[in-house]
């Protein structure tokens, strides 16, 4: 199981209190993790990445194992620690005012 930590506003939107766990059938990448996340929580579609292009929204970042994966290819394998569930995949709202 993959562990995903969502920012507070998206936890509220998805009606979850803490991190979520999802099952990914294929290789564990940003794309496969987000595909599975949006399948389990369809209300998150369009909030993390664009509906059509699937590009990451500008003020959303992806962290894992203390690394910023935001600019990596969405098809690049995520660390084994994420794939095994030892470490979570973090969806982060970028720090900004407002």
């Amino acid at each position, binding site marked *: 199981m993959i562990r995903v930590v969502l920012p507070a506003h998206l936890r509220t*939107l998805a009606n979850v209190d803490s991190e979520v766990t999802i099952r990914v059938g294929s290789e564990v990448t940003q794309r496969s993790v987000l595909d599975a996340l949006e399948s389990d929580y369809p209300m998150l579609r*369009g*909030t993390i990445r664009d509906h059509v292009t699937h590009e990451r929204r500008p003020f959303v970042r992806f962290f894992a194992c203390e690394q910023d994966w935001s600019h990596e290819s969405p098809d690049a394998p995520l660390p084994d620690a994420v794939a095994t569930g030892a470490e979570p995949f973090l969806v982060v709202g970028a720090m900004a005012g407002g």
Partner: protein
Amino acid sequence: MSGVRVLVGTRKGAFVLTSDGRRERWDVSGPHFGGWEIYHLKGSVADPNRLYASQSSGWFGQIIQRSNDGGKTWESAGNKFVYDGVPGTHQWYDGTPHPWEFKRVWHLEPSLTDPDRVYAGVEDAALFHTTDGGQNWQELPGLRGHGSGSHWAPGAGGLCLHTIIVDPRDPARIFIAISAAGTFRTDDGGKTWRPINRGLRSEGIPEPTAEVGHCVHHVAMHPSRPDVLFMQKHWDVMRTDDAGESWREVSGNLPSDFGFTIDVHAHEPETIYVVPIKSDSEHYPPDGKLRVYRSRSGGDEWEALTKGLPQRDCYVNVLRDAMAVDSLDSCGVYFGTTGGQVYASADAGDNWTPIVRDLPAVVSVEVQTLR
């Protein structure tokens, strides 16, 4: 027993204010969707417990929320707003072509007869609709495909479609307004559109009387007279008596004819309300006095309504969708400010009291009259 439900959209959430028909004591519910911008929420006339809300943020984009119980509980609906076909370009601030990009929903307008049918006015300017209660949204591309579309340019607030008025006599006739393109009308349910801006004069554009390019801030109609529209333009208050074929200025004795909002009394089609704002660079009332101006003659002659409103040191703004009226026997008038106050008058504007004083900046106010 009759009552009213005031739906307030703010920069940091939605609030639902309810009262009985006396409109003296209020229950305040919220914030709903705290921390998110709520540009607009509105109830269905056909089913008053069906509400729709536009929830958005710079981080996470657009969400549409729907309530089936008058705002007590909400569920997220569809949020996929994709322009029809190849989006093309409109004009950017510097005059260069700029791709159409969806940013947010500014205004939701439920059908007058079907609670599952809703129009959505969006930025970058386009009109979408749903026929399944908000699960799926489709663009009505004839508007953006109007020949002038590639020349539309954003106002300071963005290229937003902010006003949608469905003709109660003929639902195939719809009026919309865009900053800064102007007002448009369809007579065939949205397939084809034409600009209806004859008579508007805007000194801030290269050709002041151009067919399109006017920064229309808001338009209002009384349902009993669908051919009469009142407009608050960037500068100038205007009216048309022929469904937009021609407009004339009715600013009259207003202390400033700049402003954002405009509305019509529920029972007197010639009684209209505006909130004059000093200028386009000073978004606050003239002289620090918050005054609603009422005309009982459909414009030209205006009286200041001040009882209960701050008459010194007031520097708030009242945005385009932030005024509404109820339809109780004594017409109630409501407006919200960027300072977080929502003022109510239960006597058509003669006397005002704040329902709440300290909300986040108010973006929109709608009222449902409950019977």
